[in-house]
Every structure is written in C-alpha cells, then in structure tokens.
C-alpha cells in the first residue's frame, strides 16, 4: 500500500510543497496537515517542514508548538510513528520538547544558504535506516538559526545513546559537537537542519536527500 505522508503547514511554513513533491517522486501519497486541525489524519508518517512558522518571531518554533496539530503529533510520536523535522521543523520539535536541545543563531550571525556535507552517524533512526554509518551526503542548508546547543548532560546522553544522527563535515554554524541532526530516545523522531528535499533530483545537483526520505518510507513499512 502507498505510504501516506502528512506534511504540516503552519502559517509561515514554506517548504511544505517541496517536501510533498520530493515524497511524491518517491512514490508516497503526500498531503498537507493544517496546523489548526487537532489530528494527523491517520497518516503513516509526519514531516514538519522548513520555513518560518509564525514568522519565526519571538523565537523559532515558539508559537508553532502551541498549534492544535502539535498535540496530535506528540501522541503520534509517543505511539511510535515516524516524525521528521526539517530545519524550522527541527526547531519546532525542540521547542515542543519532542527533541532535546535548542537552535540558536548561526555563529557568523548571517543566514546561510549553501551546500553542506553531512556524515551519517547512526543508521538506527527512521531517517537513516537506509544509509550507511560514515556515509557522507551532500544536502543543502538554509537557515539563520541552526546552531545546535544543549546542556552537557544532554550531550553526554545523546552521545552515549548514539542519538547524534548527523554531523557536519565542516561545521557551518557553530553547532555543538558539529551536530546537524538528532533523534529521540525511541529513535522515531528525528530533527535535522539540512534540507533533504532540496537534494532530491538530478537537476537540483544532488539526489542524496532521497536516501533519507526513502528511509522514512521504509520505516513506515516496518511500523505497519
């Protein structure tokens, strides 16, 4: 059966159509979940895409986490459903407490839209089950607040539990321990700053993102 992918749209989100496009190319049935509806509509996986939910005013993700859909996402995650936050989505999942840590302004205090290389640090996550540990992927970044931070004990825990999912090969934003993405303890919620959907087509210069998006679809197959 076709995997049903729900892509959340908050006011200010802007990568939702891109994620839907990339997922559709991979054969999924992807559609929008409106932030104001308190349900994930029975989808197989939820993606919180990039953009500027609520303008990123106050702090990235600060307002979005109160949207009615977020309780449904939390319940879905608690029941083991695969949830991926990309860029702003990662920031929102951190604010919502579904992932540890926070994302601060880039160390250079400038927005960065550029190619990045990330190393897959674990294949035990819904986003990397189809990737090899140590594999380097070319996936663009596009953010002002991508500088990952958490307290020392959280970092120790992430490291000890193999929950750092990606590290930058060359740290572009000052992120702690070069972290580009992390997952929760159950490994079904993953957040990352780079945009896999932007590396989903030959014409876009890289298809490495499909390794990740494809992993999500296989994770769904396993869950169901």
């Amino acid at each position, binding site marked *: 059966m076709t995997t049903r992918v729900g892509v959340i749209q908050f006011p*200010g989100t802007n990568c939702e159509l*891109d994620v839907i496009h990339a997922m559709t190319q991979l054969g999924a049935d992807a559609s929008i979940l409106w932030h104001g509806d308190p349900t994930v509509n029975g989808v197989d996986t939820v993606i919180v895409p990039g*953009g500027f939910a609520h303008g990123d005013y106050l702090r990235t993700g600060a307002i979005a986490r109160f949207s009615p859909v977020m309780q449904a996402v939390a319940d879905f995650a608690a029941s083991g459903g695969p949830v991926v936050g990309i860029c702003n989505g990662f920031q929102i999942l951190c604010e919502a407490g579904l992932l540890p840590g926070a994302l601060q302004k880039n160390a250079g205090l400038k927005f960065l*839209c550029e190619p990045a290389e990330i190393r897959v640090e674990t294949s035990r996550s819904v986003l990397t089950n189809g990737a090899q540990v140590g594999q380097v992927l070319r996936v663009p970044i596009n953010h002002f607040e991508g500088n990952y931070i958490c307290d020392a004990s959280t970092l120790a825990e992430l490291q000890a539990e193999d929950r750092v999912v990606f590290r930058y090969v060359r740290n572009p934003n000052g992120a702690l321990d070069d972290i580009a993405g992390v997952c929760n303890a159950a490994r079904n919620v993953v957040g990352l700053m780079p945009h896999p959907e932007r590396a989903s087509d030959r014409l876009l210069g890289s298809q490495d993102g499909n390794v990740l998006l494809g992993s999500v679809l296989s994770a769904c197959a396993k869950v169901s």
Partner: protein
Amino acid sequence: MADSLHVQLGMTDDEFEAVVAELGREPTHLELAMYSVMWSEHCSYKSSKPHLKRFPTDAPWVMVGPGEGAGVIDVGRDLAVAIRIESHNHPSAVEPYQGAATGVGGIIRDVFSMGARPIALMDPLRFGNLDDPRTRYIFEGVVSGISGYGNAVGVPTVGGEVVFDDCYRDNPLVNVFCLGLLNHDELQLAVAGAPGNLAVLLGSGTGRDGIGGASVLASAGFAEGSLDKRPSVQVGDPFEEKRLIEACLELYRRKLVVGVQDLGAAGLSCAASETAAKGGAGMDVDVARIVRREPKMTPVELLTSESQERMLAIVTPEQLDDVLEVAARWEVRASVVGLVTDTERFRVYDGRFDALGIPGKNPARPHGDNAEVLSSDSAPIADVPIGSLGDGPVYYRPLAVPDDLAERQADDPRGVLATKFADGVDLSAELLTLLATPTIADKTWVSRQYDHQLFLNTVVGPGSDAAVLRLKGTTKALAISTDGKARFCALDPRVGGALVVLEAARNVACAGAVPKALVNCLNFGNPEHPEIMWQFSEVVDGMSEACAALDLPVVGGNVSFYNESRGANIDPTPTVGVVGLIDDLKVIPPAAALRDGDAVLVLGATAPELGGSEWASVLHGLHAGVPPIADLEAAGRLLPFVAELANSGAVAGIHDVSDGGLAVAIAEMAIAGDVGVVIDLAGVPISEACSQAEILFSETSNRVVCSVSQLDVEVLLAAAVAAEIPAAVVGIAGGAEVSFGACANVGLVEATDVWRYAIERSLRR
C-alpha cells in the same frame, strides 16, 4: 509666510489650479492630499510617460503589457509568467535593512496581484565604494534586509547584481525583480466590475508609517537636514505578507474575487480609485471601516498611508462570507472599506456604511482612539471625478545634451592607456586587481544569505550568467538575468541603453534560453534638469531599438527619478530583467566554467573599446570616451546560436564577456572550473587592430567564451562560420596558471583567492 497647503504637499501652483478647474471649487484638505500623491512623479509618471510610449510592447506571447501590476507572458502548456521590477532607492538610503525589505514586499505584491504565485526574486544593487564606512553599513543592511524579508516570505532570491561606484555613495540603488507563475485561467486584473461590488481591504492595519511616502521620498531631491520631514520608517512584516499571499492565492483558486490590486504608492487612494476608474465605475470608501494601527488617525492619513502588506480585493456581495472565511483561516485581517458605484466619482465618507447596511462592521479602534463616528447622512469628505486622480499632468520636460559630453567622448582612454601599457608590458597585476574589484569579484558573500532553492526549481542559482528555473511538470525552463551598465550610459545613453539589453539577452542565451520579455527599472537623477531628461530619452530610445531588433517586448517597468544628493546626480542607470524560455531542458545548462583538457573558444570579434570599461574607469580613473558599439545585427546572429549551443550539450562551459573583458571572463571560468588555462592572444578574433591590453580588457559587446571538447571543435567552428559569427580556438584548459602568454600570467590559486574573498576583505577593513 508659510507655504500654502498645496506647496507643502509638493504640488505646483499650476497643478493646484488644474485641481480647482477639475472640481469647479477649492478642494478639501483630503481631496488635495489625494491629488498630491496621485499626481506625484512616483505615481503619475508625469515626466516619463511621453517617453515610455516608445518602448515596443507587443509580441504574440504577451498576455499583459505595461500598465498592470506586472507584465504577463505565455510560456506554453497553459502556463504564464508574471514579471516586474521596481526600485526602493530612497527608503534604503534612510534605513537600509527596512528599505530593502519593504522593497521586496512591494514587488511581490505586484506579482501576486496578477494571480501568480511569486517564485523568484532578483536584486540588482548599487552602492558607493566599500572603503567608505557608511557604504559598508548600507551594503550589509540592504543585503540583510533582502535576506530577512525574502527568505521569510518564502520567495527565493535566485540572482541579481552588485555594482560599486562612487556615484551611488549617498544614493544607493536597490532594485528588486520578481517573477511569478500562473495558469492562464488564473490571471487577475485590477477591475471593479459591477456597481454593488464590495472592496475588501486585506492585510496589515493602517498606520502612520509611510504617509506621503511616494511624494516625499521618491518625487523630490534628498535635501540635507530634511530629517523631520521624513515619514516614519516602514518596517516590513514578511509573515503578514506570506499569509496574505496564501490567502489571496486561495481566493483566486476558488474564484472568489472579481478584481484585485495591491496597495503601494499613494495607498488606498490609488488602489481604490484605479480599480474602479478602469471599468468606468465609481467607488465610495468609508474610512470608519479601515483597521487602524494607531489612535486618532485622520482621513487624510488613512487614505494616503503606504503601510505595507495590504491588498484590496473586489468581491461580489454573495461571495463576501466565503472571502472573509478564507481570510480568517489565514489570520489575515479583512474589512469591507469600499462600495463600487455607477457614479464615476470617488467619494470618501467617515461612518456611512453601517447605516447603509453594507456588510461588515467598524473594526475595533486602537487603545486611546475614541474618535466619534460621524452620522450616516453626513456629506462626503471627498468627492472627485474618479478618472481625474489617475489622469495627472504630463510634462514634456526640456531635453539638453550635456555641455561637456562631446569633450568627454572625444577624450578616449585608449590613448593614455596605450602609452602606459604598450605591448610587452606585464599585465598580470592589472588582471589580479580587476579580479579583486568588488564589482567583478565573487558575490557568494551576498547570495548565500539568500534562500535561492525554495520550490525546487533552481537548476542554476546565483553565480552564473543567468539563473535557470525548471517548470515542474513540463520539460520547460526559464532563464533570468538582471543587468545594468551605468558607465556606458553616462558616456552615451543611447548606446548604453542598447548595450544593457544586449547583455541581459546574452546572459539568458548563455543558459540556453530564447529571450522572451524584458522589464526595466530606470534610475535617473533630477528630471527637472534638461540634461537628465535627455539622458532618459536617449536611454529609452537605445533600449527600444535593441528590444525591437531582438523581438523582445517590454512588458513593464518602473521609473525612479530624483536620484541626486548634495546636488550630484547618479549616472543614468537603467537596469533590466530579461526572461528567456528553454523549451526542452535536457541537461543542467553548462556552467560558466572550464573543463580540464577542453579547448577554449571565443565567439564574436574583439575591438579596442575601452570607454566605460572596468579597466579604464575603475583601475585608471578614466571616465571618458565612448562605450563599445551596440551591434544589433551581430547580436541577432549570436544569441540564437549561443542558446542552441548551451542547450544542446555541445559545450561543457559557457560565459558571456562583460565587466573586465575577455581576460576576466576566462579567468572566472578557470576559477569556477578549478583548472588553469593557457591562452594565445594571437588567436582571438578581432575586428580592428588591438594591443594586447585591449584584447584582454576591452568590453566589446556580443562575445562569449566556451569550453569545448577537442573532438567537437571543428563542428562548432564550422557551425559558427555558417552562422556568420567570428569564432576561434584561443587556448586550452589545464595546468595551475591562468596564462595569457607573455603578457599576463597569474597562479590559479592566487586568482581564486583574490576574486573569492575580495568582498569579505573589503568589509573587514
């Protein structure tokens, strides 16, 4: 004695008399205020109108030409593209971040007012020299403003231009180009339809910011010490605009609007009167219905405020509820502020709609605003013939050739430079200095601050001759380039105007596209100076001639006059945005890069043309001579040839020759390909005897450099001969040096370093 009201509002005595004649009585304060903004240079184009008529605007693929929010062209498969370019120069001089940000917001509204989803921005920018601290502040602020607004509103900035020249020190130019995509049946026009229709104001509350913005900021010179006359700075709200875009696109999709117009210069006065005037209708507006951001705003303020992020939608009463529901869902404020009438008059009331039973109720007023709503049978506070607001005066301003022009043109830099740089002199240092010139140097410091990938269309982003966007679901792609070359225009505005068009068209061709439409932003000095008006007229003629020759319709534009400060006018600076179409995009178009082992081919002949060149002007301070010839016939042969080459996979790399000439073009390709190159100047096709320095640095138009597999060279040369295009192999890519034989030789590593980090280094000073 204090100036009379109309003078304070920036109107001449004659203009005031015209208003009195129109009304048959003295205007009220509100009426006069509306006329003053509507008849301002910025809104009425009173000085430029007679000239702009000369642009060729027709082609079978043009769906909407100049005059609407944006031009629209058919690109096949039921798809259309809307394009527009606009300036935000004066606001950016006052507050660089917000000035640039609100410029982005404004141009995006123009494009989605046509029914299109905005999918790309480009930003042609001009600043003073980076050794001036204030210029560095303005430059960084403008770039952050575009980044801050464009990224958050969710429209990628896929390219642009940055030029540094002293003439922009106190008057930076911030032009913004936007492109949108729509299906044919989604096209929206700013019309009001039948009497009884309602005008719904959508978006931000109306504040005092930007009151008189159009007339105060963009329609007069920038006097020293005019600080207190400045309207308060407009702050952009990209989140509001993003919701406004989505709400409007949903309204269009569901066919819920009759017409729509953005609120730009002259605010509600303009949007409400224009939509109705077009269809020969009238419009009543009730200011009590306007959502206010500040207490105690007067009708004058409410009608002329240029607060950002607002749109006016005309809807039928039957569809109002659906419209309000869509707005509510997107958290967009919406209130019924106008009623279409059959009076052909524009009437303003304060508190009449409730009594008439027009749906909607007066919105809550801000804290501290207890102003009483006037009774329903009160007389209008403005009542004017609706057409008269948009039918301002037209000025046939005097034209005069600048006194010193002939002398300047005669003083060609060629003479001085020939003596200083005779054949045999080492030109390596000249080349390195050119590569490190901020105008030529790498712009990645700028473009990486912009999201240039959103929507997954960007096949070629910033860094090549043109940006290339695929049209998903088709095999088609668009190529876009923005260009300007003010120094050429200063030396000969007519030739310069044509050269700008040729360069943009060539950039688009290098991406494999056929140029289809052009928009222009004409940045000039004070039109009350006959020399400036002459420059303007000549530029329009030069651009028109080039466009006509290339079958390139002008579908829109914008005029920015009064770019003067401390009595000095900027160089005449037309910028253009050209959109080209690739019908069948098979491969990623070739980059402006060399490939190791390839032959380096030059198309087009070089002439000793140094007037206005980067080398003569910037490196040697010689601002004189004549610009290169604008050979329109040669362009007509070259462009289709180049487009075909680029799109057929026959070349591995391709780059047009512009700033800095052949030497810079080839060095840039070497840097981009991360490979050295050995060139033999003797092989370069010339149309006239040239010194070595002239071959390297002349900025002759109609030239392109290609990187071609050795195996394909003969075929390509034969094709060029058949197309009557001068062409020759001039060298081979390889090694670790960028070498032009004995006359210039620089290490690839050093060339890369000076080019790549020049802007960052200038900023760290």
